[in-house]
């Protein structure tokens, strides 16, 4: 007598679990342009690597002691591989009672987080629906209510300081699901089929009187700039591609260094384009992204936090070594540091500090943005918080000054009180205040006393222009090296080896917990 009958029952129950909410619900889900949770997991992971945990969890109905019906818990989880690296993946099953808590087994969500935390491997959440949030129906079912606690949140928060956490918003996500989406290092959202909000339209209409559709309340247009979502994609497949790509720059946990890949892009690539990339006319903006492409390994620039707008942040590689990148987009308000830019910068610096990625800053910073709108938003506080993040980072850093460095913002782009491998392009232009604007303030009394203020201003401007050349700064060793822009990639590819040699032998947790 063997245990074969029980093995047969096991397979039977697993079959039932795989049906999810049933054919009809699955068909309706597909009709909305969305994949089922099992299809999503399949698409995310390396083929055939999904090992499910907790498949048997759910509600069972028995007739005469025999299993008559089974509704699986609406959360599917387990381990799998992404590019060979083992990860934990958990996804909400929207076909089973819309992904709400009364049908899910909360234990599975908590276990998934505990698994990632204990095995110290990356956590991927495929969020749909309320992601395990409660429903008032539970009150009647149970006959009592309870003080809410976000399940597994001790692990959820700790995981941010331990392993890469990536999450995708794949449906109308609210409440706890929304929280689980953004308690991550990377949040991705699918435009059109997914929305993100604290509470959905019915609750909002009742509580606030605002009558909005799901898209109007929390669609891609809202989250393009909200700061809650790092990357917006056009379809679900793309979401999985982005998550896989993001994880490829990071170690599996904080106790390892970032994975170095062999690079096919020559380290001595010198793009002629760089010699003219910065316009000679100081008032003309330029496109930063072609410059990034010229400096970093081909195809390796992975932009994050698009809501940063004027501040561009990305992961990239130099000679196969992952690095963080901070740059400016002068087309957006001149590239000055805004509240959003500061937030994006802090997120990138903290990510690199947590996972031991050296940081490259391409500085073109006119300073914190000015004006009443900027003051109302407390720009100085956010800007200084970004500078504090930069000063608190211990990862090796390099700076290429490609144009302006002015003010507190320019000064704070790198830690100017420790060693930073620094280069300047001939287009570099720096000082406490720019001459344009600074002149009128500093020489106000002379200009007011003059018979011809315009002519005097021109004369003063000519005198100041004569000494603003970066070569003069170099004479005083105020800048260590001015380089041919075409030499930048070879120099950075050489530096990255120094940087990786300086990373700790025994890397560990960040000194302060990482916040989303």
């Amino acid at each position, binding site marked *: 007598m063997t245990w074969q009958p029980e093995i047969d029952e096991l397979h039977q129950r697993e079959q039932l679990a795989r049906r999810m909410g049933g054919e009809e619900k699955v068909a309706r889900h597909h009709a909305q342009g969305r994949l089922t949770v099992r299809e999503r997991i399949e698409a995310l992971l390396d083929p055939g690597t999904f090992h499910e945990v907790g498949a048997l969890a759910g509600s069972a109905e028995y007739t005469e002691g025999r299993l008559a019906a089974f509704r699986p818990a609406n959360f599917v989880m387990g381990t799998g591989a992404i590019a060979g690296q083992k990860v934990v993946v958990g996804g909400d099953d929207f076909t089973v009672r819309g992904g709400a808590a009364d049908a899910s087994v909360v234990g599975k969500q908590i276990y998934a987080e505990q698994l990632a935390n204990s095995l110290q491997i990356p956590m991927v959440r495929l969020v749909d629906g309320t992601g395990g949030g409660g429903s008032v129906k539970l009150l009647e079912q149970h006959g009592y209510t309870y003080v809410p606690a976000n399940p597994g949140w001790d692990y959820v928060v700790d995981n941010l300081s331990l392993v890469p956490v990536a999450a995708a918003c794949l449906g109308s996500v609210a409440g706890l699901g929304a929280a689980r989406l953004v308690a991550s290092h990377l949040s991705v959202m699918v435009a059109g089929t997914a929305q993100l909000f604290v509470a959905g339209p019915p609750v909002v209409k009742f509580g606030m009187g605002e009558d909005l559709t799901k898209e109007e309340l929390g669609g891609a247009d809202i989250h393009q700039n909200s700061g809650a979502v790092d990357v917006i994609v056009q379809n679900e497949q793309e979401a999985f591609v982005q998550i896989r790509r993001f994880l490829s720059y990071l170690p599996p946990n904080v106790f390892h260094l970032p994975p170095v890949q062999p690079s096919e892009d020559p380290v001595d690539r010198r793009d002629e384009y760089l010699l003219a990339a910065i316009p000679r006319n100081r008032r*003309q903006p330029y496109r930063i992204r072609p410059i990034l492409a010229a400096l970093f390994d081909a195809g390796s620039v992975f932009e994050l936090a698009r809501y940063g707008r004027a501040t561009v942040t990305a992961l990239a590689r130099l000679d196969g070594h992952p690095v963080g990148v901070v740059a400016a987009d002068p087309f*957006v308000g*001149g590239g000055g540091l805004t509240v959003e830019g500061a937030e994006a910068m802090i997120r990138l610096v903290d990510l690199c500090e947590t996972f031991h990625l050296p940081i490259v800053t391409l500085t073109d910073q006119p300073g914190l943005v000015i004006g009443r*709108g900027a003051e109302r938003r407390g720009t100085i506080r956010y800007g200084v918080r970004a500078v504090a993040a930069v000063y608190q980072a211990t990862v090796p850093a390099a700076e290429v000054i490609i144009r302006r460095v002015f003010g507190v913002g320019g000064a704070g782009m790198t830690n100017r009180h420790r060693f930073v491998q620094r280069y300047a392009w001939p287009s570099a232009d720096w000082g406490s205040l*720019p001459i344009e604007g600074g002149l009128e303030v500093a020489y106000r009394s002379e200009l007011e006393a003059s018979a011809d203020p315009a002519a005097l201003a021109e004369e003063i401007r000519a005198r100041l222009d004569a000494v603003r050349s970066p070569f003069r700064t170099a004479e005083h060793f105020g800048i260590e090296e001015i380089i041919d822009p075409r030499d930048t990639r070879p120099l950075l590819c050489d530096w990255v080896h120094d940087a990786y040699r300086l990373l700790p032998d025994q890397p560990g947790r960040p000194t302060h917990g990482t916040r989303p």
Partner: protein
Amino acid sequence: MSTKVAAEVTGVVWRVEKSVGDVVNAGDVLLILESMKMELPLEAPIGGKIAEIRCKEGQSVSEGDVLVILA
């Protein structure tokens, strides 16, 4: 179906490049704003005909002010 094109930044209208009635393509420069001592182009988000220009050269504008209406 008209499209409002708003200032993306607070600044001064430095140069208006188009006129009412002009047909533009997505990406065409409608006007240039000066802010943070830079000349920043305001591009048409979609193609269309310029129905209204709600600003003039030298005018101070705030982020979010509607400057051009495309039909």
